[in-house]
């Protein structure tokens, strides 16, 4: 019950949650170290919100245990847990003033000088001047900060953030990301942040757990997850990836060599999850280098091509090329705009190379990995759509 201002470890042991008709979480094991900023990242319906609600005490797990510090709180009702939540909709009480909202938790616990502490918390989020207003009179960003103050003021062992930035526009969201991170550093409380926004998770969290279909696919520091995704899902959900399937030709020394449409593609052994049989390997789009003439084979460099550029989209900082390579499929490539304007145009014949060290091999069965539909942005969907229509027209 008593809060620890330095935060406490959160531990989930074999937690599952089944609802009538579906399983939200399957045997989840997770440890969030005290004082960390931990993000649970995944698409909607992956079980991340259910996990958060179980930690908050708003749902009871079907099996498993929840520990905060050393205490088993699995059966503790939410109002007796040293946990506070910043709700997705903020859930500010509309019939109370901002100050009453912030003081609510303190008063329930009979804290002395609740009002003074509520004012302090409002000062922290720079909103003490609106203390007497009703939540409906505040802007979205202000409401979000009040919700944060209302949770933080209780000095919980663990602060839960349920997509708290989802309702804000992009610019405000960026600003709030920075503020949240600062506040976390200041107060030192353990933050558990649930989000579907991979960029948000990467900029804010020390550790990210990527969730999919009720399981944790991979966990680690943001850069680690990005550079070495272990599953096709992580490779595509966290940023974009080019994935290829093929049989392993040789696995001698510290590289494995895979046959991708007749080309030999090498991947460092320690960066590959599977070393024999049919495997799926990949490389990030920004690691690819574009060539307009076939480069000479070189040690430590993979080569694919020739392919044909069928879409060039210029986005200021970089240019995205979509390149169709016969037998492999469509590859995405990001190039920094070091010279002005795109280097090659639509329809050009190109070759692609990348350093062997940048490749990775995922754990999925090849058939499954390639069937996976990545979380495409609308632009990519539009391009795919156009491609399909063009193909149909050609046939006709």
């Amino acid at each position, binding site marked *: 019950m008593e809060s620890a201002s330095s935060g406490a470890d959160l531990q989930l042991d074999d937690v599952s949650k089944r609802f009538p008709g579906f399983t939200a979480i399957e045997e989840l094991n997770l440890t969030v170290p005290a004082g960390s900023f931990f993000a649970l990242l995944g698409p909607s319906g992956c079980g991340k919100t259910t996990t958060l609600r179980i930690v*908050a*005490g*708003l749902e009871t797990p079907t099996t498993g245990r929840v520990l905060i510090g050393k205490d088993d709180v699995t059966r503790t*009702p*939410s*109002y*007796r847990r040293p*946990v*506070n*939540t910043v*709700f*997705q*909709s903020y*859930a*500010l*009480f*509309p*019939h109370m003033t901002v100050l009453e909202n912030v003081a*609510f*938790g303190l008063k*329930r*616990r009979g804290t002395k000088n609740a009002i003074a502490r509520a004012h302090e918390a409002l000062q922290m989020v720079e909103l003490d001047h*609106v203390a007497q207003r*009703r939540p*409906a*009179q*505040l*802007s979205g960003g202000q409401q979000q900060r009040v919700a944060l103050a*209302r*949770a933080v003021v*209780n000095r919980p062992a663990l602060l839960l953030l349920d997509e708290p930035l989802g309702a804000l526009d992009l610019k405000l969201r960026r600003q709030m990301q920075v503020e949240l991170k600062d506040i976390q550093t200041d107060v030192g409380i353990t933050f558990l942040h649930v989000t579907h926004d991979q960029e948000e998770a990467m900029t804010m969290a020390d550790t990210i757990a990527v969730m999919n279909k009720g399981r944790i696919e991979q966990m680690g520091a943001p850069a680690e997850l990005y550079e070495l995704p272990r599953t096709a899902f992580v490779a595509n959900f966290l940023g974009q990836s080019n994935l290829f399937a093929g049989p392993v030709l040789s696995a001698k020394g510290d590289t494995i060599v895979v046959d991708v449409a007749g080309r030999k593609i090498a991947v460092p052994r320690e960066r590959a999850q599977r070393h024999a049989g049919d495997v799926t390997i990949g490389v990030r789009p920004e690691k690819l280098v574009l060539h307009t003439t076939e480069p000479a084979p070189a040690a430590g460099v993979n080569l694919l091509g020739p392919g044909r550029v069928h879409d060039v989209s210029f986005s200021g900082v970089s240019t995205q090329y979509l390149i169709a390579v016969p037998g492999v499929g469509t590859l995405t490539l990001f190039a920094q705009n070091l010279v002005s304007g795109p280097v090659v145009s639509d329809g050009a014949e190109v070759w692609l190379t990348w350093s062997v060290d940048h490749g990775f091999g995922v754990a999925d069965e090849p058939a499954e990995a390639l069937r996976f539909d990545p979380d495409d942005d609308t632009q990519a969907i539009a391009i795919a759509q156009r491609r399909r229509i063009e193909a149909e027209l050609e046939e006709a």
Partner: protein
Amino acid sequence: MNRGLRLGIGTWGLAVYAILGFVLLLTPIVYTIAFSFNDSVKSNIVWRGFTFDNWTSICVVENGAVCEAFGTSILVGVVATLAATALGTAIAIALARYRLRFRAAATLLIFLPMATPEVVLGAGLAAQFLTAGVPKGVGTIILAHTMFCISFVVVTVRARVSSLDPALEEAGRDLYASPSQVWWRITFPLLLPGIIAAALLSFALSFDDFIITNFNAGAASTFPKYVYTAAARGIPAQANVIATAVFLLAIALVIGSQLYSAGRRKRLARTP
């Protein structure tokens, strides 16, 4: 150009039609109010001149029968409203917030009284009181009114409950409020406007009900029953006085609450 003109005529035509509609709606009200000031002798049918006498003699005519009936109506209305509001609010919360095995059956049970003509409701209850040997009187009127008010309370409060974000109650629990504190500090205050609306509606329905009352009143008389009985021999002007007073009070309440909420909206709109 032509089209704009036609639209204009259409709008004006509609406005005239609507205003005629309002005149139609208000005619008998104005008549009733006017005749509360009629210097009537026995029957209050012919206009004989203006007087305030009826307003000062409400409880004098017919040995205060009008007054007594009015008092019974108030008593019935208050008790039936309290009972129906409590029972109906509980049902509304259960239906809107919980998963229930008998939801469809319960919903039907609540809908049916509203879809049943009052004469059937009244006759059914009267038949039951007859079978059970319950003597009819103020008690049976209250029982009957509570019954038909419940459904309206459920419908009114349920709309409010389902528009309430469940996250607010969760936030309360998350902020260390026990279940009873969550109810009294969060849920109840937020539902209160809906509950008050439901209670006012109940009272209005009960106060103006005649048909069901007529079947279950026995010798007791409510204000509408008094008017019905008096209609055959002539309704005294004092009945118009009571109706007028109730009308003016209700209109004042409605306009007051409209102004209050309009003012509040304006205050809320003034965001920084």
